[in-house]
């Protein structure tokens, strides 16, 4: 499997080349186009209960797509729903990533996707919800974001503060605490940040340059209200 990002920027697409017999999993609805040698199947990743918990707990789709090059080699074009950058990570079998629920686009067949419950404070205030995806295994992982993706590299014990709702993915070796953006409660909210996540290295943190919730609130004012 070989993957390449086409049209990098706001409206990218991923081209994945599959050898005969190879398969990948992708978010349901992610396929844009593919060679005629590719078969599309839907699969409940992690079994029925796993899929059910993913659907109800993370809000992710119940089914994943499996794209299999069953009749010879071929290529698949994949794209996310929202405008925003795509990033390709190589998982080495030791690294694990936590991915916010809308961040997964596609991955090699060997990667493992699980729902994971966050702690109460992270779930309530982190902006990612109570359940996130934990992705491990060995192979290519394709993530998408809202806006541009920015990678933050943290050395051991190095800290970095990220506004909640801007997280896309972070390695399991990092840890984070939720805290107020400023020292006072009132200023925390009047500054427009509310709560922030203080990350501590080592590891990688991928953030998105736009906040989907804020964008939704902004666009709502332009939507005509029907009587």
């Amino acid at each position, binding site marked *: 499997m070989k993957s390449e990002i086409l049209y990098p920027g706001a409206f990218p697409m991923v081209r994945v080349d599959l050898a005969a017999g190879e398969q990948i999993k992708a978010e349901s609805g992610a396929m844009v186009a593919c060679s005629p040698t590719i078969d599309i199947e839907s699969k409940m990743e992690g079994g029925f209960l796993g899929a059910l918990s993913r659907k109800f707990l993370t809000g992710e789709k119940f089914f994943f797509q499996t794209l299999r090059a069953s009749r010879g080699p071929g290529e698949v074009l994949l794209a996310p729903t929202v405008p925003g950058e795509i990033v390709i990570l190589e998982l080495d079998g030791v*690294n694990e990533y*936590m991915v916010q629920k809308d961040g997964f686009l596609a991955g090699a067949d060997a990667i493992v996707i699980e729902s994971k419950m966050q702690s109460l404070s992270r779930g309530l205030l982190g902006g990612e919800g109570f359940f996130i995806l934990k992705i491990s295994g060995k192979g290519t992982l394709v993530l998408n974001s809202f806006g541009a993706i920015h990678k933050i590299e943290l050395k051991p014990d190095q800290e970095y503060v990220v506004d909640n709702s801007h997280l896309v993915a972070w390695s399991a070796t990092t840890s984070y605490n939720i805290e107020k953006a400023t020292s006072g409660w009132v200023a925390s909210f009047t500054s427009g940040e509310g709560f922030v996540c203080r990350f501590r290295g*080592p590891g990688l943190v991928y953030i998105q340059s736009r906040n989907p919730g804020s964008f939704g609130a902004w666009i709502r004012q332009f939507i005509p209200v029907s009587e």
Partner: protein
Amino acid sequence: MTHFFPNALCFGDEFPASGSPCFVQVDGDGLTITFESSEGGDGAREAVAFSALTVSAGGLDHDHLVVKWVNAQGERTLYLKNPDVIRAFRQAAPDHLNAPLEQAAERVRQVRHRHRVMWAAVGGSVMAVVLCLWFGADLLVKLAVSRIPVEWEQKLGESAYRDFLTRQEVMKDGPAVTALGEMTQRLTEQIPNNPYKFEVTVVKSDVVNAFALPGGYVVVFTGLMKKAESGEEVAGVLSHELNHVLQRHGLERIVKNLGLLTVVAIVLGDQQGLVGIMKQLGVELLTLKFGREQETEADLTGLQLLQRAKIDPSGMIRFFERLSEKDEGRMEWLSTHPMSTARADRLKTELAALPKKSPEPFTFDWKHVQASLGSQPVAAP
């Protein structure tokens, strides 16, 4: 060339920020860390003695064992998650590492425990709220009902009452009406601070039934009066029905049927919309059924009222018992007032506990009243 299976991540200045995958082996006096070569097999190897190491817990859920040491290139940090490696490390570690290892393990336990406690607290609170709503609903309903003015209740009952009577043959006068009037008067005289103007109507019908609407509107069918063997029996039913009104049972049922949101609206001061909401939802006053608790309450308060009015309360019990024994005729009163021996027994116990009062008989002759009913043409149901 052997295939490389990493089991840990090593961090340091010359490694990428995501960490360098490595293979950690625990031996007698320290760790051997093997990195992957550029060809994919085993590459650089580094051995560290236990004496150079410090350990702690780390990672997102504090479930990694973090091992640190300093070598010529600077500080190295190893993140171990593989349980086999961690177990081997704990077994081989010398004494000076035991305390920090125990601390790290304790920290992991603490974090897990805290998470469990937090989630249990949240789960518990949610359960508590649900239970409060479940069991506190009755209290909330009573609170809402107590805020509805009697005038509203009367308006509500009156419209349904007038509507019902237009479809029925009402008995305007005669011994039955006079007798019922006497019973009503004797009973209502004994109600302290009565906010209701009770209106009792006799309707010609073979149906063995009587009912009360919110606001004090009571209907007694001639069928019930024919079935009764004495005026005291009818007075018992009447007393029971009056107490449904006095306890505002009808209103409670309406509020319950309309749901929690209405209750909240009423408690917060919006009683005006009640009639509108009822019409909207099609809540029928005449088909309202009282709950078991309400029946028991009306039974007991009804009994006490009879006692105060010096009407023989055993008539009430006798009538109930007789109706429950035989299933003859159209005993609709029974369908809405299911009799059980337990209920009758309860009334008997209650009656025994009340102070004995010598009953005063009614001025009418019950046989005469019943004869007057029998001579009337019976309306088709």
